[in-house]
């Protein structure tokens, strides 16, 4: 095919959609329409149905982190009296709300906050704080932690009530009626997008994997921000087709090196040290093929089933009990034929750290797969040591090499 004639690649589309997403929010603000700030795994179906321009502070903070600009906002938040022990996404965002502009990406300040408690408890205090500081209303959807293996029936009913109530609050806020037909359409589309996201990331099961997991980190922006839109759907379908073609051709993750080992990454990326963390793995031929992310946005339910929708949002890894998480990790080890696991002990995320050692111990016992834990932070660049990271990754490589009969033995 002539390069000039070729159709757009998913990477180009990803870039275009990301720009479109932020432009849309800026335009809404300029035209006097309200802008919403929402948590990353919240039922955006409600907002999409209401045609509300929405941005996602966690994604925005990640983009700022990846552009190595986080300290500007972290310093601002800390000067304002926020402790270094608070999640760095919160610090970056609260700092941004004060500064109001960034080199990486500008976002308009919110007129409404939309917070779902399924990812952690921190977001509740963070959003309440924003609501008070910025004097804007907040809609909160409570999704209690699932201490039992499955989402209990009483929880499902309770969460459905939460969603119904959120719809009423949205109607009151916009002074418009919530269009149930449109809602059905958005639900259908969101499910379809999630399905392709899952199908695409599942292609990493091929050996070698056509997917380099660090690319998945990039595509995540759109599964968070645009999964209820036609464009989002098209992106993941396209990405899937590209990966499927690569897999069919037996192509691995990189053109410059071969995939020798396959690992999963537990936790959030280290955005400020993305290339360092990536290169140290690649140097040893280690490809990160999966993480808990593919399933986190595999939000699937029957269209118009509000309770099912609530259960799907409540069923994400972060909101499930230890037995579920361990079983899930074991499944990934088996299905993705993993050689090892890299655990990011993330200073920001108490929720993830809280159970990490125990998950490591039990998954190690169940699967026999070696693993390492390294200390870092998703956006605060100060909580990471390159030398320590490299030593841990190399030690993992040595354990995996020995597992394959290497190391001169």
């Amino acid at each position, binding site marked *: 095919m002539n390069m000039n004639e070729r159709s757009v690649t998913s990477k180009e589309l990803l870039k275009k959609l990301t720009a479109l997403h932020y432009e849309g929010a800026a335009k809404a603000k300029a035209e006097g329409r309200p802008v919403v700030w929402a948590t990353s795994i919240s039922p955006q179906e409600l907002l999409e149905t209401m045609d509300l321009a929405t941005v996602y502070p966690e994604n925005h903070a990640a983009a700022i982190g990846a552009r190595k600009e986080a300290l500007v906002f972290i310093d601002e938040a800390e000067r304002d009296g926020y402790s270094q022990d608070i999640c760095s996404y919160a610090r970056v965002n609260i700092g941004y709300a004060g500064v109001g502009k960034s080199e990486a990406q500008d976002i308009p300040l919110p007129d409404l906050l939309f917070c779902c408690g399924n990812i952690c408890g921190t977001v509740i205090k963070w959003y309440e704080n924003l609501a008070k500081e910025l004097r804007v209303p907040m809609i909160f959807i409570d999704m209690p932690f699932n201490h039992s293996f499955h989402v209990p029936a009483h929880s499902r009913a309770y969460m459905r009530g939460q969603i119904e109530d959120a719809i009423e609050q949205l109607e009151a806020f916009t002074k418009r009626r919530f269009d149930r037909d449109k809602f059905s359409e958005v639900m259908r589309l969101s499910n379809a997008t999630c399905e392709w996201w899952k199908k695409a990331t599942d292609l990493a099961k091929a050996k070698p994997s056509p997917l380099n997991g660090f690319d998945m980190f990039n595509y995540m922006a759109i599964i968070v921000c645009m999964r209820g839109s036609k464009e989002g759907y098209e992106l993941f379908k396209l990405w899937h087709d590209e990966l499927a073609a690569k897999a069919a051709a037996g192509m691995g993750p990189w053109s410059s090196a071969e995939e020798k080992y396959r690992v999963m990454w537990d936790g959030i990326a280290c955005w400020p040290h993305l290339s360092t963390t990536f290169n140290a793995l690649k140097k040893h031929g280690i490809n990160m093929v999966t993480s808990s992310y593919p399933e986190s946005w595999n939000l699937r339910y029957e269209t118009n089933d509000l309770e099912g929708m609530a259960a799907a949002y409540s069923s994400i890894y972060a909101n499930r009990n230890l037995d579920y998480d361990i079983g899930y990790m074991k499944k990934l080890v088996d299905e993705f034929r993993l050689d090892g696991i890299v655990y990011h002990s993330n200073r920001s995320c108490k929720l993830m750290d809280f159970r990490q050692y125990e998950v490591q111990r039990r998954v190690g016992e169940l699967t026999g797969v*070696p693993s*390492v834990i390294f200390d870092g932070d998703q956006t605060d660049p100060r909580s990471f040591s390159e030398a320590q990271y490299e030593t841990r990754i190399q*030690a993992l490589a040595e354990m995996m090499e020995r597992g394959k009969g290497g190391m*001169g033995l």
Partner: protein
Amino acid sequence: MFAGIDIGSSSSKAAIIGDDGRLLSVSVHNQGAGTDGHRQALERALALAGAERSDIRFLVATGYGRMRYEGADRQLTEISCHAKGVAWLTSGARTIIDVGGQDSKAIKLDAAGNVANFAMNEKCAAGTGRFLEVMARVLDCRVDELSEIAAASVKEVPISSVCAVFAESEVISRLSSGERPEDVARGAHVSIARRIAGLAGRIGCQPEIVMTGGVALNGDAVACLSKELGHEVLVAPHAQAIGAVGAAAFAWEMARAAK
């Protein structure tokens, strides 16, 4: 002959193994990464073995400075090399506690002596040799005198800060309020032992427990650790240089495997 060199943060170690797999020499030089301590350590080990650089057929480098050392046939982590060194010189070890200048680790070994899992200190000096260096400075003694001083302790002065910088001011205020240096030294050992026991717990500490690294030479610290773990902690032969011994052992094995 085969060489291993361990370039740590505060010292460099070298070891030479003969063609028959016997350990011929070890050396420790008190200068670490960023100095030419590694060259001096290697020269000394070579001299002790009656050998020259050209006699070395394969050299493995380990430690913090491993990647910047030119002239290594392969670089391996301290984790693998400590495990290999312990397996080379002892038998029956299932847990290694290594406390070096700027990190401490607990390594779990499988029945064959290979690394099954490990845990390392977080990105700070708590529970490492550096902590004891700070303590020695406040107590105005050398690090290798701490053990003897603490042996005369009659009670432990608890040091609650795990951070070396905070612990320093804590100790200064303890001393000025009349506590004895002996008891403070013991307190420092207990503090480091608790921290390490926490690491060891994470990997499921099983006997035999063997200690390596510079702090293993501090008898009082080792005794405190035994008490914390509720099990005797053995000190590895050539404890400080055992990473270099392991590196040399890998050199020996890898050269043979390559044949």
